[in-house]
């Protein structure tokens, strides 16, 4: 079975090292916070000026002045801190964030990421902090469905949508596989058992490398 979003989030969470500073992109990547193994202390960064961001509060505890980058109410962990936007992006651009998990429209085989604009010019585009995060974080994980709803591969030779960053992605986590972007090409590290390598290749717009592929098997979530 292809992974659901919670399961992709779970898989990414297992990969996050203890003590890391992590920024989770708006939307699907936010789910990753729910699956951090209990014995790891992770410090979440929010680009609007928070380190040590905690989970969503009870409805009655919500504070309009304490929100995440997606503008949803959050909390602050003991040890957390507030700072201004300039300092926050100094952390990002300066390489102090260990990991950022971002969503994607498209990813190219050399790690280009497109996740901020489509080719539709009638709607105003919006980049937010995506370009800063893409170029600044030490590691970029992409969290995405393997294909679009109509079955078009999101991983391709070259992105056709406007880029967010060039050669920035380290690893792609999809509902079907975990794929590292290496100097040799797209290395499949894990895939679900229900799909063959050839089937995975057919759903991918760039050549995959097969070597020592492990099973991608998250718990039921």
């Amino acid at each position, binding site marked *: 079975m292809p992974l659901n979003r919670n399961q992709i989030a779970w898989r990414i969470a297992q990969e996050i090292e203890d003590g890391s500073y992590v920024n989770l992109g708006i939307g699907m990547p936010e789910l990753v916070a729910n699956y951090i193994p209990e014995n790891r202390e992770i410090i979440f960064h929010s680009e609007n000026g928070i380190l040590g961001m905690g989970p969503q509060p009870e409805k009655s505890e919500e504070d*309009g002045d304490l929100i995440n980058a997606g503008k949803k109410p959050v909390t602050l962990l003991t040890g957390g801190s507030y700072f*201004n936007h300039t300092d926050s992006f100094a952390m990002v*651009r300066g390489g102090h964030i260990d990991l950022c998990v971002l969503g994607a429209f498209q990813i190219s085989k050399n790690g280009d990421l497109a996740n901020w604009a489509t080719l539709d010019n009638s709607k105003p585009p919006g980049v937010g*902090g995506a370009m800063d995060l893409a170029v600044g974080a030490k590691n970029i994980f992409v969290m995405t469905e393997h294909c679009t709803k109509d079955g078009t591969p999101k991983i391709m030779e070259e992105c056709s949508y406007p880029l967010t960053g060039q050669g920035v992605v380290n690893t792609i986590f999809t509902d079907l596989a975990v794929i590292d972007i290496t100097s040799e090409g797209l290395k499949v590290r894990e895939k679900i058992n229900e799909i063959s390598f050839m089937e995975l290749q057919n759903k991918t717009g760039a050549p995959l490398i097969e070597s020592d592929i492990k099973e991608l098997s998250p718990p039921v979530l």
Partner: protein
Amino acid sequence: MRDKVVQVLEIKMIDKRVNTFEEALQGIADSSTVLLGGFGQAGSPVELIEALIDQGATNLTVVSNNAGEGEFGLAALMKAGRIRKVICSYPRSSGSFIFEELYESGKIELEIVPQGTLSERMRAAGAGIGGFFTPTSAGTLLSQDKEVRQIDGKDYVFEKPLKADVALIKAHTADRWGNLTYNKSARNFGPAMAMAADLTIAQVQEITNLGEIDPEHVVTPGIFVNRVLEVKLEN
């Protein structure tokens, strides 16, 4: 003799407190570039922005992370037809229908700047930096017409300072010298914007006596602030 006594008693004091929206916004001219604090609603000086409608300045260039939501604050100013151009990182949200209508009918200009670059450009303006090289947006549409330089093997884009005539920001506490503190993540763009404008106006939840803000805890020193107005809001 009497004159002299009066003179001694009339020691002037630096006093950046104003009592009305009218005083707060006095002198903002048409065609100004105006920085508006806030990230979404957190830190947005909604009441100051709405008072700007009455103040009357028009043909404004507005710098703000977002392009407003609903029909209040920035969206209300837009709806009133006062804004020529918006410089922001993320104009669209679920409630940004007023901006979207204006944009789609070609009635408002839009410049998209990456969020970190937006903040850094204002900080550069405030810090007297003539321009800087950032890796953000290298190789993307947003650096298409910009100077790109390779430094130590990596591409950087040249960005210029973003200076403004006016900044409207929201802080938590102020004193008569204009020292400011903020509340939680509502701090966001306030400190950079305060530095970058010729005239910085802050609405605050509370004005305290001089000295009640610990000198170690001042976030925006008064040197960056021209006027403070207490606008008490329910939490």
